[in-house]
């Protein structure tokens, strides 16, 4: 009885509850959220008021401290609604607040984490620059030690929630020559008349995940106090990032699984109703093969992703496994959205039909947590023991 694939009764109930919230608050607005390309403040406030932004955090700060598997259930169900809204929420729940909760002092937690869990302050994390992303060693944003704190200089790109962020966890180097060993995290808040901080640069318009707003953030000689250094030792930023990367990768897999399922569930209904040559197209073998192949890959990647969630929860080392899960689920999703587009035929090319939205949203998942080229290069080396 050691191999057990069942969710607990509580986890099943939690899935049902989140699904109900998504069905009621998000599903009716999916098309509108995609078309408007604006951050849905009303939906954010309503969703935040239910308390879901605290699922990872300690109860004393207003969180739920849920187990990892339940968190993954949350990410999967949320992405089943709107991928864009899920991106904004997950940024707040996971990456945007992780280092504040891990290293922030009590004053910072009360000032930033508590309102973030209530949805009153919005956070994000900043890795990507024009010449770095998956290649973190290329980070050029500079943190310079000054009396009483640090000065941050640099530009960050592709920042989810950037235009609306109140606080950011910024990866910066203390010396570019040190490569990965020079990297650290810093808390930088938005510039106001009372406070030095970042300013919002160019807003990016995306083809998918459109209601999560994205922009460049500019750090122009920003002063931050000593306590905004998020870590125990200088130079351990990459090590700290690794703590969360497994979760980020499995979370991305969950999003991919949700999009794939949506795409193929819709395609199934379409195939059963679309008549060609006197029959529903679902009667044709080439169409059936698409569903069979998807089903096999979906089941395999879904089970593998939850296995990784289980490994994280049980503190079993699983860096390679989580990379594989992210790669596999996202590639499976690419197959599903591409085939859904083909099943819809010419109608797929119209924005009246949903597969194009799934296709556009899915592409967003290729890059976060490491591009597939970088992941595969690494995994290939590990496999070959090079």
């Amino acid at each position, binding site marked *: 009885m050691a191999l057990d694939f069942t969710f607990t*009764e*509580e986890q*099943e*109930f*939690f899935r*049902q*509850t989140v699904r*109900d*919230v998504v069905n*009621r*608050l998000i599903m009716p607005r999916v098309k509108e959220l995609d078309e408007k390309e604006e951050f849905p403040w009303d939906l954010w406030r309503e969703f935040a008021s*239910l*308390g*879901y932004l*605290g*699922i990872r955090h300690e109860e004393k700060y207003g969180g*739920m401290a849920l187990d990892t598997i339940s968190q993954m259930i949350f990410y999967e169900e949320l992405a089943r609604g709107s991928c864009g809204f899920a991106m904004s929420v997950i940024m707040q729940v996971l990456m945007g607040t992780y280092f504040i909760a891990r290293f922030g002092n009590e004053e910072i937690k009360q000032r930033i984490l508590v309102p973030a869990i209530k949805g009153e302050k919005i956070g994000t994390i900043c890795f990507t620059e024009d010449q770095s992303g998956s290649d973190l060693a290329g980070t050029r944003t500079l943190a310079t030690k000054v009396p009483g704190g640090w000065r941050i200089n640099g530009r960050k790109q592709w920042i989810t929630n950037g235009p609306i962020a109140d606080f950011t966890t910024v990866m910066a180097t203390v010396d570019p020559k040190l490569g990965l060993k020079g990297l650290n995290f810093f808390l930088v808040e938005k510039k106001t008349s009372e406070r030095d901080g970042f300013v919002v640069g160019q807003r990016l318009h995306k083809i998918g995940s459109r209601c999560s707003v994205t922009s460049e953030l500019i750090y122009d000689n920003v002063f931050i106090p000593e306590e905004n250094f998020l870590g125990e030792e200088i130079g351990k930023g990459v090590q700290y990032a690794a703590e969360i990367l497994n979760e980020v990768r499995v979370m991305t897999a969950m999003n991919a699984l949700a999009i794939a399922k949506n795409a193929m569930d819709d395609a199934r209904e379409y195939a059963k109703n679309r*008549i060609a040559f*006197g*029959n529903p197209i679902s009667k044709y073998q080439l169409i059936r093969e698409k569903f069979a192949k998807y089903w096999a890959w979906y089941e395999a990647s879904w089970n593998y992703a939850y296995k990784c969630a289980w490994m994280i929860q049980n503190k079993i080392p699983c860096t390679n496994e989580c990379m594989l899960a992210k790669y596999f689920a996202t590639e499976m999703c690419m197959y599903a959205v591409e085939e859904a587009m083909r099943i819809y035929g010419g109608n797929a090319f119209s924005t009246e039909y949903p597969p194009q939205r799934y296709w556009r949203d899915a592409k967003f998942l290729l890059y976060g947590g490491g591009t597939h080229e970088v992941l595969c290069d690494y995994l290939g080396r590990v496999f070959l023991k090079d």
Partner: protein
Amino acid sequence: MEIFVLVKQVPDPEAMIKVKSDSELDIENRYFTNFFDEIAIEAAIRMKEKFGGKVTVLTVDNHRVDALRRGISMGADEAIQITDPLLEEANPFAISRAIASYLKDKPFDLILAGRQAMDDDAGIVGPAVAELLEIPHVNAIVSLEIDPQKKEALVRREVEEGKEIIACSLPALFTCQKGLCSPRIPQVLNVMKAMKAQIKKLDIKSLGLNPNEILGLKDIIKIKNYISPPKRPPVKMIKEDFPENVKILVKLLREEAKVI
């Protein structure tokens, strides 16, 4: 106020259901709380918020308790599951007997239930429980006002060409119809509470019921056979040009589809 709410889990409307044999259905394992029962839970919670007291959700189910946890997450205080192998595949009369046996010695002001379950659409359990308990009942209410001092309720139900307003004494049982209220989305802290809630389990013996009585009631209704809905006929394309195609369409609608 002491309020009991009768709840049931039913297959999700999107769940795949196939006729497995004459007396058996193959139902995909996707269940949710009956829509009308959620309205009953919401109405009960609102009464508790207004007048104080306690809400208990109760189900008869050998396998699932999500409807009870749903009730707790919405604000109910206690959850009771009546579960017994003898109640497997039980009909509404056996279920009503089990519920009434539990409630007969309990102090309560109000019992609420959904108008009907969305799976069998029978609508029997609510009224049957009230009959067994010998208390007044009104079906499919769309409004509910309570006077706890006078122990009276004023309810409205929709009837043909209008609304019927009924006053009745408490304790009473009402089944709830769409329009009575809109079920709330539970706060996540209540969801956590529901996830951890202890569900009190009771079997036939602990209810003081004679097993033969339940077996006898189970024989009242026998499902003879399930029949799948007819398959949709193939699409018929009309190839003629206008105006001939309109004449053919009208003829088909009248003679084949019989809709005009």
